[in-house]
């Protein structure tokens, strides 16, 4: 019984094969036999570059989100921190370091000074809230070593037990050249300075 079934299947397969071939022969009118020459310039590529600013702790590779977290600052006192501004992308960049008050006592923020030292050289000292410094990191430069100091030189009772929170913004400066890069990056570092008490002279 099983052999008969197999025999029937085989017969059916042969019939289909012959009829299929006959059908193909009867309907084929043209073949793709025209001449064609093809030249291919393969794998043309356009790749883009990158611009990425990193702010890192002076001693490690972790990303910095907070720099100053200072409590009990008194008249004549200062606090010092280090930061590395790092080129993480391919492109070098011109950058701007500026500050902006985020919260806290404005009088205290206005009384503070920010000192900017780069490569162990004093670059500038200015009022904290008006601080702006421009610099650059070339395509072959890896990093800038920066030391920042917050200084309180004013002696006033209204500055005691106050808090000033501010951000240090490190941002690339867009080029004014129309052909300049449109890539942009900005990093924000949070800071808090709180004063203590002292005797007024």
């Amino acid at each position, binding site marked *: 019984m099983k*052999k008969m079934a197999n025999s029937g299947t085989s017969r059916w397969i042969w019939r289909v094969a012959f009829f299929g071939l006959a059908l193909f022969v009867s309907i084929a009118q043209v073949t793709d036999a025209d001449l*064609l020459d*093809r030249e291919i*310039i393969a*794998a043309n*590529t356009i790749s883009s570059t990158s611009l990425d600013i990193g702010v890192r702790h002076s001693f490690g590779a972790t990303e910095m989100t907070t720099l100053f977290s200072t409590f009990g600052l008194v008249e004549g006192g200062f606090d010092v921190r280090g930061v590395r501004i790092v080129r*993480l992308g391919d492109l070098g960049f011109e950058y701007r370091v500026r500050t902006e008050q985020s919260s806290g006592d404005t009088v205290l923020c206005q009384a503070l000074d920010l000192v900017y030292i780069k490569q162990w050289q004093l670059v500038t000292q200015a009022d904290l809230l008006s601080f702006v410094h421009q610099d650059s990191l070339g395509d072959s430069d890896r990093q800038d070593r920066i030391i920042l100091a917050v200084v309180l030189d004013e002696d006033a009772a209204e500055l005691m037990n106050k808090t000033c929170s501010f951000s240090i913004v490190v941002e690339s400066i867009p080029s004014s050249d129309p052909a300049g890069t449109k890539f942009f990056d900005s990093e924000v570092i949070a800071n808090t300075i709180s004063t203590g008490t002292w005797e007024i002279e």
Partner: protein
Amino acid sequence: MPTTLYSIARSNRKNPRVLWQSAVLIGLIVAVGYLMSTALFRDVEESGQASFLAGTLDLEVEVRNSQTEVMQIEAFGAPGVVADTKRWRVRNVGSLDGELQVSLANIINTELACHEPESLVDNSCDGVIGQPDTGELGAVLVGQIILDDDDGARTVASATLDSAQSEAYQAQWQSNLGQYVLPAGEAVDIILEWEIGEAGYTNAVQSDLVQFDLVFDLEQLISP
């Protein structure tokens, strides 16, 4: 022949070995028949278009104003690297006139890295590094195929280098030029120009790669 094989199969139902031998024999006959019929078609085609049997169709692509044939642009987005042009001379060095068609094909956009500025505007870029059709660079670039012949230079195809545009260049060439004949021995210049589209570009295209093939076809003219 089929009747004979069928008879063999029928008379050897109880002998599978003979049945399989018959099957192999039938397979051979079908294969030989197919090959013979294919050759027959070629004969018919050639006898009807006898003229091209004596000729050749040969396309040659030369590089002009460039040291390398393949276009390789690095550091798009760096100052000054926002557009470029490359020119090729295409010559029909065969003895037959042919229909010329030039197109861009196999456009692939790939994400090569995911820097922080890009991740802020494309938060998925970190997970697709190296995968095809993930980069955004091609979508902000416009490629143009310019034909420069005796009638002057004119753009015949223009589209972005987005992966989805792989068919657009060929379609535009056909719609703008129809059947463009390059006579035997003649040459024309093909210019490929790319530039930033009107929308410009942003951090989303950082560290991207767009790759494509430039295809030159010279096809036999078919008589109506």
